[in-house]
């Protein structure tokens, strides 16, 4: 067991005052077989009303509203996590099929299917997933700013560059095409100032994790998960709607340290 403290801050500045602001956040860590929380806190400003719930994948969500006018919105999620090696028993067998079919951002292109064939070499399951993860790492160039939140696996693969989200989508698309159930995960890792995305693959009734961006197979420690889903669209950290036509500027800071 290893212990980590984390502190995740987001400050959104609105160019003009907004009101009737409704939000839904996924900024607090999950609790699962390999991730227990000694404590987890949420600071919100302004704070009118917040409810703690769970989404369809049982990820923690924090939602509510700020009705009165405000020109900034701040949330700070902090706490202490106790991690075991990254292995999560399959939660609900009936949902496994869902992670075997492609979703909006993972649909592979013809080139990706060809790529899969080239790297398959008789392997399957976890071994194939690891091989594909490495292949994706070698094929792609990490290039921030070249893709968007909505970029698909096929698009990123086509341009051979992207960020962790794109690496994850490509690997998920390839795994699913090979019949391996795979899902998208995001959260915090030590030493990185932003959220990170990786891939969970189900092998023999257990979810194990790979990080294609860092060419890391079999993640063990240090990955604090806040959400998983079919792809990034299921796991947005912050969604909000408000009345007003303000522009937004967002500052994010994350600190994760082993203690």
């Amino acid at each position: 067991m290893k212990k980590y403290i984390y502190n995740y801050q987001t400050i959104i500045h609105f160019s003009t005052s907004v009101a009737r602001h409704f939000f839904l956040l996924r900024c607090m860590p999950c609790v699962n077989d390999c991730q227990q929380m000694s404590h987890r806190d949420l600071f919100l400003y302004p704070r009118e009303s917040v409810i703690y719930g769970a989404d369809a994948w049982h990820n923690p969500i924090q939602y509510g509203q700020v009705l009165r006018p405000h020109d900034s919105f701040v949330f700070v999620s902090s706490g202490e996590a106790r991690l075991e090696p990254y292995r999560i028993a399959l939660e609900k067998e009936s949902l496994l099929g869902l992670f075997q079919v492609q979703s909006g951002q993972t649909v592979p292109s013809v080139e990706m299917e060809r790529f899969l064939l080239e790297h398959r070499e008789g392997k399957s399951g976890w071994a194939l997933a690891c091989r594909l993860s490495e292949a994706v790492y070698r094929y792609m160039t990490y290039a921030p700013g070249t893709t968007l939140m909505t970029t698909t696996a096929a698009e990123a693969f086509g341009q051979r560059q992207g960020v962790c989200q794109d690496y994850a989508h490509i690997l998920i698309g390839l795994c699913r095409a090979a019949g391996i159930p795979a899902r998208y995960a995001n959260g915090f890792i030590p030493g990185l100032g932003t959220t990170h995305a990786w891939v969970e693959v189900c092998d023999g009734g257990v979810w194990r994790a790979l990080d294609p961006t860092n060419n890391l197979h079999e993640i063990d420690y240090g990955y604090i998960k806040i959400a998983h889903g079919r792809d990034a669209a299921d796991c947005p950290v912050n969604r909000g709607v408000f009345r007003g036509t303000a522009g937004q500027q967002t500052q994010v800071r994350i600190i994760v340290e082993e203690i």
Partner: protein
Amino acid sequence: MDKLIESRDTVNRWLERFGVRFGIYKNGVFKEQLFPFDSIPRVIPADDWRMLEQGLVQRVDALNRFLYDVYHDKQIIKDGVVPAEFVYSSKGYTPECEGVTPPHNIYSHISGIDLVQAKDGKWYILEDNLRIPSGASYPMIARTITRKVSPQTFQENAVVDSRDYSQLLKEMMDFVNVNGGANVILTPGRYNSAFFEHSYLAEKTGALLAFPGDLMVENDQVVYTDMYNERHLVGCIYRRVSDEYLDPLVFEPSSLLGIPNLMQAYKKGNVAVVNALGNGVADDKGIYYFVPKMIQYYLHEEPILSNAPTYLPYFEEDYRYILEHLDKLVIKDVSEAGGYGVVFGRDLTPERLEELKQLIMADPRRWIAQEVIDFKDLEILEGDQRVERKADLRAFVVSGQTTKVWKSGLTRFSRNPDSFVVNSSQGGGFKDTWVLEQ
């Protein structure tokens, strides 16, 4: 009945007077059009109706069971009756609904089931509409008018009174209402094509008509805010806004029509949403094929009403049949975006047929094929001439405490003699649908 038929123009003037219109966008400009009423009714004898009624109740009950199953234990998938990928890759499958149980387990409260009658009198189901089926208001208001315009006709013909649709709706809404708060009809607004219907149903059911922004979720409860900024609890929302726009924090983020955090209030059981979210998975063109199997699976009954004979190239046997008989079949592309649409094999040149064959072979899951049904055409008045035209029937099935079929329906017809497409936005009209007492 002749008296009534002669009064077509009078009825249409009354419809105009009441603002019975539907909106369409033509070249980006919103226009409200009258929906032409044809005075020759579709008459359904009592015996036929009994059979239709039983068949429709059976079908809708099975579809409701299916929806519950798909979002809970998925027994039908485990038992191999419906393949998992048909469910999960359906555009209508909504994972956010996993494990969410709507009040009384009812998903499809108002089902619009489209049927056609073949020349031999046999009825076929064309499609199930379980999301936001529209159109009941037109025959509803038409009947109130025709009864006034030609009372003799209704004295002489034993036609079942169909003016109880709003009562059916109201009873259903009261039944699913979770907290005794208000019943609300949520409309996307005046520029929605069916706005007349939203406002008319609100008038007739006594529900509040809410526009985007009128409703808000606070502490997991849905409230309607009045002019004094006071909150009124809402217990049932008959929404005419589709799933993807219903909660901008869960679905389409740019939606201005939705109610932020509605999904959370709904998940907690604090509001009934009519129809439930996620129903699209059951009225998918690819799932249609499995509905007769669902009836057998859930109800252990033989389907009373038949599907139009349908083939899925996904299955080996069907695949071979389709490729051999492509020139006789109707082919439908079930992929939503940029689709091929609906094509009749008999209309294609040999080259185009070959092209289509290649497409089907390349991606079998994308297609379904159906036998061409020899429609029984209905008479309509074209000027003063009686001519025959294609028509379908949308039956409305309301599921509350029990499942009931509204004893009428929307009969739409095509004006164009060569057209199989019965669609109000393409110049068609509608008729009253008479169900006879005996």
